[in-house]
C-alpha cells in the first residue's frame, strides 16, 4: 500500500517536473496550472504515504535513509506551497520541482523496509529534533532555488541581453528579499534543531557533543548561514553575493546529508 502510494507520488512529481521544465521554454497558463495540480496531487499522495508508515511503525517515518530523504522532499514541497501561497513567485516550480523529484528518486532507490526502532531512538526529542532540522533545511533548499533564479535574472540585467526568462522572472529585489526571508526562517529552525539534538544526545549517550560527522557538518552549515545573515546586516552582502552564498550553503547541506550516509560512520548511522 505505502509502496503504491509512494510510486504514485513519485510519478506525479516526475510529471510535474517535466511540465514545469517545458514552462521555461514556452509561457502558458495551462501548463502552469497542470504543474501546480500535479505537484499538489503528488504532495497529497506523499502525505498519505507518510501517515500510512506512521500508522505501521508508530513513529514519524524518518528513521532509515529512504524515509529520511522522502520526508525531506515532503518538507521542501511543504515550504514551497507556503511560499507560493504568500508570494506567488513566477516560475519557482521550474526551479524547485526538479530538486523535489531528484530527492524522491534517490529515496526510491534506497532500501524501504520498516525497521523496528532501537530503544535509544524512542524519544519525543528525537522527533522534534528531526522535524525541525528537516524543515530548516527545506527552507534552505527553497533559498537555493530562489538564489539560482536570482543569478539567472541578474545575468540578464547585467549583461543587457533581456531575452529568455527576463520578462517572466520576478524582480531582483523581490527575489533577494524572499531569499533573505527563507534564511531567516531556516536559521532559527536549524538552531533549535541543534539545541534539541544536543539535549537528546545527552539523554541518549550521556554527552552533549560527540563530534560525529553529522554534528560537525551541521555546525559548518549553521556557521555558513550565520555568516550570510551577519554579513547582510552588517556589511550589506545582498543581491548576487547573498544568492551565491545560499547556493553554497545548500550544497553543503547536501554533502552533509548524502556524503555522511556514504561514509556510514558515527553515531548518526541510522539516519
Amino acid at each position, binding site marked *: 500500500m505505502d509502496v503504491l502510494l509512494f510510486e504514485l507520488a513519485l510519478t506525479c512529481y516526475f510529471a510535474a517536473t517535466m511540465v514545469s521544465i517545458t514552462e521555461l521554454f514556452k509561457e502558458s497558463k495551462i501548463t502552469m496550472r497542470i504543474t501546480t495540480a500535479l505537484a499538489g496531487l503528488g504532495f497529497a499522495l506523499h502525505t498519505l504515504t507518510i501517515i500510512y508508515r506512521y500508522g505501521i511503525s508508530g513513529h514519524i517515518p524518518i528513521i532509515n535513509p529512504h524515509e529520511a530523504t522522502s520526508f525531506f522532499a515532503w518538507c521542501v514541497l511543504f515550504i514551497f506551497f507556503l511560499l507560493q501561497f504568500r508570494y506567488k513567485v513566477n516560475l519557482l516550480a521550474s526551479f524547485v520541482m526538479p530538486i523535489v523529484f531528484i530527492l524522491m528518486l534517490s529515496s526510491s532507490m534506497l532500501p524501504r523496509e520498516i525497521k523496528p526502532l532501537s530503544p535509544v531512538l524512542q524519544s519525543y526529542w528525537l522527533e522534534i529534533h528531526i522535524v525541525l532540522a528537516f524543515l530548516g533545511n527545506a527552507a534552505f533548499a527553497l533559498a537555493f532555488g530562489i538564489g539560482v533564479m536570482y543569478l539567472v*535574472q541578474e545575468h*540578464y*540585467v547585467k549583461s*543587457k541581453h533581456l531575452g529568455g526568462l527576463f520578462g517572466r522572472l520576478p524582480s531582483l529585489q523581490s527575489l533577494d528579499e524572499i531569499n533573505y526571508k527563507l534564511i531567516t526562517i531556516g536559521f532559527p529552525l536549524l538552531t533549535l534543531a541543534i539545541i534539541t539534538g544536543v539535549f537528546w544526545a545527552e539523554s541518549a549517550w550521556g554527552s552533549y557533543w560527540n563530534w560525529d560527522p553529522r554534528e560537525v557538518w551541521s555546525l559548518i552549515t549553521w556557521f555558513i548561514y550565520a555568516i550570510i545573515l551577519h554579513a547582510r546586516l552588517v556589511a*550589506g552582502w*545582498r*543581491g*548576487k*553575493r547573498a544568492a551565491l552564498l545560499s547556493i553554497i550553503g545548500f550544497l553543503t547541506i547536501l554533502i552533509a546529508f548524502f556524503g555522511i550516509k556514504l561514509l556510514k560512520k558515527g553515531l548518526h548511522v541510522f539516519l
Partner: protein
Amino acid sequence: MRILVVGLNHKIADVEVREKLAFSGEKLEEGLARFRELAEIQEAIILSTCNRVELYANVTDTTKASESVKTFLSEFHAINRNSLENSLYIYDDVTAVKHVFRVASSLDSMVVGEPQILGQLKDAYELALSKKTTGILLNKLMKKAISVAKRVRTETHIAENAVSISFAAVELARKIFTDLSRKVCMLVGAGEMAELAARHLVNNGIQDVLVANRTYERACDLSKEFNGRPVKFDEFISEMARTDIVICSTGSPTYVVTKNQMQKVMKERKQKQVFLIDISVPRNLDPGINELENVYLYNIDDLQGVVDSNMFERQKEAEKAERIVAEEIETFLKWQASLDSVPTIRALRDKAEEMKREEVEKLIHKLPSLGDREKEAIEYMAAALMNKLMHPPTAALKEGGDDKASLVALIRRLYGINGEDKE
C-alpha cells in the same frame, strides 16, 4: 453587399495630406452623415486618427462607390479631386476585410502592437452606431475586427516589451525593484529624453523625485513639475546613497561620477540595488561602474539595444498575428457567404425535407398494417404541408430587396440553420 475601404495612412501620405483629410471634432459627425447619404453607400463608418483617415462602407458596386467617395472627400475637404487620386488606397471584399482586421490588431500601425488604435476604432464604430449609419454587414465587420484584435492581444506577445527608450527604462526598473512607489528617483541635469524617462517612471509609481542641476533655479522649476525636491549640483553624489534610480543627462564633457565614487556610494547604501541611466553623450557615468556588484548601468546605446531587440520580437509576434488574421478572414467570409439567399433557400428546403422524411418514417413504422396507398397518401400530405409552409419564406428570400441580408440572417435564426459562427 460588398465591403469597401477608402483611406490613407502614415505609410502613403505625409502629415500635410493627412491633416487636410482628417475628420476632426465636429467635422466627423457631419462628414459621417454626408458620407452615409451618398447614393452608392448603404452603411458607413469613418475612422479618423492622426495616422490614418479611413472610410468603411457597404456598397453594391465598388467602382462606382469608390469614385463617389473620392468626390465626396474632395468636396468635403475642399481639395483638388486629382490630387487625391494617388494618395488613397482602395480595398474591397477580402482585401477590405483583411485591412480592417489588420488595422484593429495594430498590425498596420506606425509602432506595430501599439494599443490605441483599437480604442479609436471602437469610438468610430460607436459614433456610427449612435448615428445609425451601420447595418448588418459593417456591424459584423466591426464586432469581428474587435474580437480579432483581442485574440491577437491574448495569443501573441505583440503588445508586450517596451519599444521606446523611456519605456525600456521603466521595464528595467520594474525588473530590478519590487515596488516602484517606494523608490527614490533622481534626475541629474535636464534634457528632453531624461525628463520623459522620469515622467514615465512617475506614471509607473515613483513618488519621490529629486532634481539636480548646475543652475539651481532650473532644478527648482523642474522639481515642481514632478512634485519633487531640488538638490544642489555639488551635493547630488551624497544624495545618491539614498537614491535607487538615477537618470543622468548633463552636458558635462567628463564623467560626473567615477567608479571610485560609486563604490563609496554603494558602501553607504549597504549594497542595495541601484539602477543608473546615462542618457548623455558624451557619457557622464564611468562605464566601469557597471562592474560593481548590484549596480546596473545602462547608457543610451544599451537602452536602444533593448528597444531594438524588443522590436525584433514584435516583428516575430506580428507574423503569428497575421496568421490569426488570415484564419478570422475565413470565418468572416463564410458568414458573409451565408447571407446569400440561394444557399439559404437550399438549406431551408433541405432541413424541411429531412424533417418531413423523419416524421413520415416514424409514422409508417408505428403503423405496420398500412397498405401502399395509405402510405403514399401520408407522404403526399406531408409534402404538401411542407411546401405550403416553406413557400412564404422562400418567396421572400427570392424576392430580395434592400434588407435582403438582414432577412437572410433572420430566417437563418428562426429556422435554426447554422453556418454563422457564434460570437
